[in-house]
């Protein structure tokens, strides 16, 4: 007779809080109908959303200091990874809700459902990050996917959002089916859907008679995740969907979805890899990382449409995280497939780092945090600059919209500049620290070649990021360019994001120190 204690439910508290907040927002619409000026009295909805996110984030933060353990009979885990991602997701969704407030008000489209769906998506992300069983994992992935499908198609002016939403839905369903099929094959090979059980079976009968089945399943599951994190060549939906979705939703997708999906991916493959022999995951993710870093940056280069450029940049950043993931599966020195022993960097103080894996986890998680803060900030400025009048002309996100921003809106220009520097990996921003940690981890794992590709591509990427900065600070605005209106919610969100970008860049110490400690604890 299984019994659950309150300890079992601790990890899902943040998600539950988010879901309850979402339901409260849904109900708020029902009560608003009787209010005469309903549209004018919706200001509190964003506040409810932010408070819910803050509450959930606080609880997740509290969870982060719990001892790592398996809960709910092996269906979920409470560990620093899931808690950390939940905190990131809570921060992301809180800022995205703030951004939406001004954005929607400007379009007279503020509704409780929108915020509710955002919170539901966040709940899905949080649950995805802690799932330790394939069916749970799939269901939670669908929770966040369905919510984002609906959010993408939320604004229906012109064909763009509807088309984006539908495209995302069709391709998402396709990739979801692939993931589910892969999971079914793995179940067929191991007789269980729990990751821990699978790992046990695979270790016991490694390279046994079901290896074909296992490898097929693994590739299919990897494909499903690669779609979610937008890795080349499974990224094709990204620019269209990111461009078509309301900009705050794009921010949520590129920050939160990616972070949660990466943690789920790592959880699945770290559990399965020991039974597989590391070469296949290594080559699989190495190839994905290489393609993603190169193609993502190359495609972003010619973009004049800043929103599409940021979409491709999001693809490219997935590549850098994948570089970290690859480092997790890098063959140890001396084994087959290593072959870079001579070129691998000599540690600065003469000792080989004892905790290479902890360093890699730390790098990945820090990168995800940094990218989330940065991307919220950059899409936030983009959202603030959008005007409905431009939508029909198709110049909403053109680079020219940024010309002279430093004069008309210096605060926004500084926020955008900080975010662009961060995305380009230029100090003193969090993007630089993130890249430094990831590249360092990759070099320590012996992935010198991939790390060099990473450095080169991020150097090339500086071109298109800095171009935005040049437009903002060195070009004059076109004659008669309208000044966008501002909302305090947007300003607060941008201030928080910019402060995060710079503070985490200058003083990453507390976060990295905590991550080191927590990952060491979890890996023990």
């Amino acid at each position, binding site marked *: 007779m299984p019994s659950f204690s309150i300890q079992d439910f601790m990890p899902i508290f943040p998600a539950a809080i988010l879901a309850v907040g979402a339901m409260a927002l849904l109900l708020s619409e029902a009560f608003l109908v009787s209010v005469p000026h309903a549209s004018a009295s919706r200001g509190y909805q964003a506040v409810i959303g932010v408070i819910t996110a803050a509450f959930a984030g606080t609880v997740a933060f509290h969870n982060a200091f719990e001892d790592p353990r398996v809960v709910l009979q092996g269906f979920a885990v409470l560990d620093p990874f899931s808690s950390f991602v939940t905190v990131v997701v809570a921060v992301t969704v809180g800022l995205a809700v703030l951004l939406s407030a001004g954005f929607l008000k400007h379009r007279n489209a503020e509704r409780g459902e929108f915020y509710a769906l955002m919170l539901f998506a966040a709940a899905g992300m949080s649950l995805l990050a802690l799932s330790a069983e394939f069916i749970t994992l799939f269901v939670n992935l669908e929770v966040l996917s369905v919510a984002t499908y609906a959010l993408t198609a939320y604004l229906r002016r012109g064909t763009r959002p509807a088309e984006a939403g539908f495209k995302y839905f069709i391709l998402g369903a396709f990739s979801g089916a692939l993931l589910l099929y892969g999971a079914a094959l793995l179940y067929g090979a191991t007789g269980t859907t729990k990751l821990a059980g699978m790992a046990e079976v695979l270790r016991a009968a490694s390279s046994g008679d079901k290896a074909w089945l296992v490898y097929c399943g693994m590739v299919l599951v990897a494909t499903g995740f690669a779609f979610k994190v937008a890795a080349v060549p499974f990224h094709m939906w990204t620019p269209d969907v990111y461009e078509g979705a309301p900009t705050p939703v794009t921010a949520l997708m590129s920050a939160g979805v990616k972070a949660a999906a990466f943690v789920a991916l790592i959880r699945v493959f770290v559990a399965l890899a020991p039974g597989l022999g590391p070469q296949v995951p290594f080559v699989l993710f190495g*190839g994905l990382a290489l393609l993603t870093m190169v*193609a993502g940056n190359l495609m972003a280069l010619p973009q004049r449409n800043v929103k599409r450029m940021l979409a491709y940049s999001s693809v490219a950043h997935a590549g850098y995280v994948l570089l970290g993931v690859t480092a997790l599966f890098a063959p140890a020195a001396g084994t087959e497939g290593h072959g870079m022993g001579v070129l691998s960097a000599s540690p600065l*103080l003469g000792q080989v780092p004892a905790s290479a894996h902890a*360093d890699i986890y730390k790098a990945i998680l820090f990168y995800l945090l940094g990218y989330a803060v940065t991307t919220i900030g950059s899409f936030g400025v983009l959202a603030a600059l959008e005007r409905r009048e431009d939508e029909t002309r198709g110049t909403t996100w053109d680079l020219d919209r940024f010309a002279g921003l430093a004069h008309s809106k210096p605060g926004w220009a500084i926020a955008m500049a900080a975010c662009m520097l961060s995305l380009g990996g230029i100090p003193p921003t969090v993007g630089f620290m993130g890249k430094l940690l990831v590249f360092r981890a990759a070099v320590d794992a012996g992935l010198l070649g991939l790390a060099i590709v990473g450095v080169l591509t991020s150097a090339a990427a500086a071109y298109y990021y800095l171009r935005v900065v040049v437009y903002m600070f060195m070009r004059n605005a076109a004659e008669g360019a309208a000044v966008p209106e501002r909302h305090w919610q947007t300003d607060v969100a941008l201030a928080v994001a910019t402060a995060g970008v710079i503070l985490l860049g200058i003083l990453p110490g507390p976060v*990295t120190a905590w991550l080191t400690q927590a990952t060491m604890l979890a890996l023990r």
Partner: protein
Amino acid sequence: MIDCSDFQSFGQYFSTHGFTDTVTCFVQNPPFNTANIGNSLWMIIALPILGAFFCGVFGKFMGRSNTHLIASASVFGSFLLSVMVFWAVNPSSTVAPNPFGSTLRYAVGADYGTWFQAGDFRVNFGLLADHLSASMLMVITGVGFLIHLYSTSYMSHDKAYWRYFAYLNLFVAMMLTLVLADSLVLLFVGWEGVGMCSYLLIGFWYDDPAKAFAGRKAFITNRIGDFGFLVACFLLVLTMGAFTLQAKNNNFPGDGTGSSQVFKAGLSAKGPLSFAAIDAFTRALPSKADSNQVTLSTVIDNGPLKGFAYGAMVTVILLCFLLGAAGKSAQFPLYVWLPDAMAGPTPVSALIHAATMVTAGIYLFCRLSYLVVLSPTAMAVIAVTGGITALLAALIAFAQDDIKKILAYSTVSQLGFMFMAIGAGAFWAAFLHVVTHAFFKACLFLGAGSVMHGNAEETNIKKLGGLSKEMPVTWATFLISTLAITGMVPLSGFFSKDAILHALHTTTLEGYEHILHWVWYVGLATAACTAFYMMRLYVLTFHGTRAPDAKVPHAHESDWQMTLPLVVLAMLAIAAVAHGIPVMENANREGPLQTVMENYLHPVFQNAMRSIEATGFVTVEHEEGLPWGAWGMAWAIALAGGGLSIVLYRFVFKRDGQWSGPAEFIRSLAQHKFYVDELYELLVIRPVKFVSFIFFKIVDSLLIDTVAVRGTAWVTAQTGAALRYLQSGDAQSYAAIMTLGLMCALFYALFKVL
């Protein structure tokens, strides 16, 4: 030693003990708890940063007086906190934590945790104030506040006042960071920060291309120095990394303060670039008791520096630091930027280019005193560099007519004196000169600013004259400062300069027995020159008759915001004499009486002195009693130089008198700064330009621009366009490509299992 245990209040103790004892006990008993002062150190930096933020962002809207108030108040707040820190570090019960063994006495500090970390290389964010830092704090915030006050009047007609005060506040914050840093990394942040603020302020009136160019010149020259600084840091990390693996337990003192485990633990806690780490490293090196120990002559046996001796590495590191310090502190051959830096507003010249920033190089060497004394070679090079700089700058100053240029060259020359002292291992003398020089040179610059302010921005001393009656306050303070810098007896400059000369005279470096002696002669000559050109400046500006081609017929005295700082600084220039008189018992319980400054800085330099005893690289002859002979000679030299100048310029030449014959040749040589700038142009800039032109044509235009940049850009753009073609917007084709990718992955995976 004085027993302060029954000290209750000033008056009560004074009635039973003497005045000196009472004062001593008063400063050793701060009326507040000193334990937690370290945790508040960050506020000293945060205040001016806040001020800079408010002035920079809101200054335009707040109006002039509010901006003045915020800028001055933030620095004054820092000053008050600095006083507290200065007081707190006096009792010996004040200690700062030190992960390398026993705690640091006479210091407060705080560690704010990991700043950044890459693998095993870790840098902690920490602040530390000991006697050296605390004295610098007083100078920076004290003089800084006076100059802010002065600026409120001086910049009263400038439209961009808010920009000015934001920069000035930021500079103060950066300089405070520099002196409070407990690691070379944070020090470098301040180092770069003051460089940046200096660049911004030199080019403050950037509308004038010459001024903008001067800013750039300062910036680029400093970059050369910074390169040296960074190389030194990298080498230091590598050397210490090698030492960590090679060191044995018997390298460390046996009194329980260190072992190789403690050292490694300390390194991983604070990082190899913290001063505590360098201190522990240098304490472990020179012990020679046991032949198994790692000493300066031991060869490094691991890492990239394998094959070099530790001593050689220390020398190389110090020479790289010297390059960095020469850039920041305007030493030969990198001094050329400082005279041009006079393009900035005059208060800036007083604060940055006389009192504080340019002394950063001296501060760095004082901070690293324990490292400096490990290499007599480096010390000799430092002393010789200082000597060359001092004499060269003094000679150039002879023939300059611009009041600020003369003061600039005089600053370069005085900084040369300080480097000489460092080279002789007399760190306290160097620092004493830093302090006294800060007072009288800031006063001189501000006086010059006052003169310019009252004379329609006239800077040519030949077009001034006779100001003593029209600007009485400026005149009186300028006279006091001039006498101080020339080295007249009752003033501070005499004692600080004499301390340096005395140290040069009595010190011998192992392996370089006569170098310091020659530098001593150079120093004496420079002292005479200093007296000469300073009196020339003073006489031509303030005495005689007013020049017929003056811009305004009558000068006017400046208002109180400008004269008050002058008076305070002039008084300080007199009062600082208290630091330089040898009245204190020797901290080592033997040897002659010490000056107040030497005694006060003893906790900072005691490790360096211990190393000197261990290595024997530096020997100092102690004399019994006070050095009356040396004092007399120094005074005579100053009197002779100054007197000659007065006679020549007051009675012989008058204003338009000209030199003739060979003297004219020397004068013109000096007037053209010995053609050093032209020499640079010919030897460095032209060849570099020529080579760079060739490279530009071949490498840049052809290879990089055409092939690499355009080629890469073309290929990249084409690839991007091709990839974009795939991005058709058609969901089916997206799915097709996904399937294709999936198929490839699947085939690869199955191929691996086959």
